[in-house]
């Protein structure tokens, strides 16, 4: 795993130096509109989030559960288009030092052209990409282009990932490795289960310096549980639901609460 000039790695390491796991918050771009996405992301940054993840709404989000699907369907129906992601990223990075990763299914990137997409993302101040349906095996172009523009490439590993794939995926990643906590899709769960810990341990054993856990995390208690063994905790659905139900103030309040769970050695 290459650490060279990685914004995402720096954010996780900063949290580590403070005795914490990094808190990573996800919101889809354009839900309910672009200005609100920026405002909500800045509220996350001001309330304990170390790294911001912004999703590109996509017509066929196979890894997403109902809450995120509904939000992205709404964003697309309201007219969100892929190039607006760069406005969102620019809007956030011009107002905070907290780095921004873009989470995207691969076809919109392919359609724009991987190089074009990467260059515009870098120009907007983005840190890199999280790619839920791109595995390193198919990522030759993205590997080259992300090197060229110094972008992070966050690949996923899952409870089903074989030891060989664990090694190759860790090797291909930059910034951190995204450990999928359960076999399933995004959505709040009451418990993330033992599989998450095994994924993190396996990824660490395969050489990953930073492993962050996502899928199903929705409460400070879950954050606290995961923070004990992982380098970062990713919260998505719960934040989307908060924004849906209570707007930006609810996002701020939830982040504040979640961030109380990130301590590595809770007293």
């Amino acid at each position, binding site marked *: 795993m290459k650490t060279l000039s990685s914004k995402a790695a720096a954010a996780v390491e900063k949290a580590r130096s403070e005795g914490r796991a990094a808190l990573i918050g996800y919101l889809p771009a354009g839900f309910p509109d672009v200005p609100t996405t920026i405002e909500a992301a800045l509220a996350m940054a001001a309330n304990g989030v170390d790294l911001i993840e912004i999703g590109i709404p*996509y*017509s*066929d*989000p*196979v*890894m997403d*559960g*109902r809450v995120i*699907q509904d939000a992205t*369907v709404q964003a*697309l129906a309201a007219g969100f*288009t*892929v*190039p607006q992601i760069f406005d969102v990223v620019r809007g956030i990075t011009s107002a905070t030092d907290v780095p921004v990763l873009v989470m995207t299914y*691969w*076809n*919109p*990137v*392919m*359609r*724009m052209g991987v190089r074009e997409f990467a260059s515009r993302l870098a120009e907007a101040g983005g840190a890199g990409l999280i790619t*839920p*349906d*791109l*595995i390193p*095996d*198919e990522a030759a172009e993205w590997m080259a282009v992300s090197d060229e523009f110094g972008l992070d490439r966050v*690949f*996923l*590993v*899952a*409870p*089903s*990932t*074989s030891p060989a*794939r664990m090694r190759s*995926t860790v090797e291909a990643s930059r910034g951190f490795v995204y450990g*999928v906590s359960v*076999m*399933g*899709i995004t959505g709040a769960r009451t418990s993330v289960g033992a599989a998450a810990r095994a994924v993190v341990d396996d990824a660490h054993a395969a050489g990953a310096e930073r492993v962050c856990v996502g899928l199903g995390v929705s409460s400070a208690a879950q954050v606290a549980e995961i923070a004990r063994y992982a380098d970062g905790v990713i919260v998505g659905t719960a934040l989307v639901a908060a924004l849906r139900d209570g707007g930006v103030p609810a996002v701020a309040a939830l982040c504040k609460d979640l961030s109380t769970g990130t301590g590595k050695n809770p007293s």
Partner: protein
Amino acid sequence: MTHQHTGGRASEPAAEIDGDAAAAFLSHEGRPESLRHAPGPYFGDYGGRWMPESLIAALDELQETFEAAKADPEFTAQVAELNATYAGRPSLLTEAKSFAAHAGGVRVFLKREDLNHTGSHKINNVLGQALLAKRMGKTRVIAETGAGQHGVASATAAALLGLECVVYMGAEDTRRQALNVARMQLLGAEVIPVTNGSQTLKDAINDALRDWVANVDTTHYLLGTAAGAHPFPAMVRYFHEVIGEEARAQILEQTGKLPDAVCACVGGGSNAIGIFHGFLDDPSVRLYGFEAGGDGVESGRHAATITLGRPGVLHGARSYLMQDEYGQTMESHSISAGLDYPGVGPEHAYLADIGRASYEPVTDREAMDAFKLLCRTEGIIPAIETAHALGGALKVGQRLAADLAPGEQPGDKVIIVNLSGRGDKDVATAAEYFDLLPDDSAEQEIAKEGEQL
């Protein structure tokens, strides 16, 4: 939407396509000597595994199981036995003499997949995959379905082999195809209406994939067409290769020679790749895939993926894709639910690019004209999907007849059409289309909705 092509297939006149295709194929430039049995994961630039990591282990397991099964005489014997004693294979090759009079007078033969158990080619694939599911020790299969053909076939195979079966189907389709939902339920399957996204076949696939990620230990995803992530395209083709093998032997026996053209409809591409496969290495045989032209490709309301799409990734494979300028999947439109899919199998994308097969759109209207013609001339009611192949075959026959060498007769030319399914499921749609239902009848209400598929 911009239409950039690696080749100019769609926009050129048909005669030129044929000449170019034959020349490109014969030149053998940079491709393997044989096109048969292409193993994947890639078909030229297409195919692969554009899939979440969570599913890669399951795809690996499936691939290993499939490779081992193919090499295991016990498995191949099991498939052959089910094909012979359950599905009803070999299917007939029927000469359609009266229909042929409308196809420039060339000889037309129908490969009768409509006579298979459950009424279409789909049974070939589901029996094979259900056997693989059992070999993997899985107890549950899931499937997607549009109008219900693949769902019914999957429920059938699951009932036969003692597997639990869950079918994902667009919520709209469950209402329009209430009888097919009942068929699946009679066979013991659970039908889950899909209310996500555009609530169509592609969203049913999305939901099936979401189910698969969460239940992969016990569950096999029984994908219904030759698309998706490796090994699905090569595996689904393998189970349908029997169509082409039989057709090739039957046509040689009945006419003493190879056909001039083989025609099939293309949704995801399973019936087409199955029959094409038998003739891939016969350069004199032209292969035609007919896509759903809907209201006409210029209308924007169609499912002509290869004709008008451009390369992209959807549901695990890189292939031609109907997408907007931002890479969002576009909604397809066709009178035929089974062709109403914005993607297409990757092997077809490759065969199109190298010019081995030609893909052309057939509109709803052309398909329905051919549908009626086959009913009236041959006493066979085809599936509306299949009617697209018939509509295309009429044009191919007329072109062959217009392009004869000196001394040749139209009757020297031979076309095989893959009659992929029977039309019982489509009677309501067709009756409404041809205005056969009394006003305000209950059937008319149902059919009205069905027609908008």
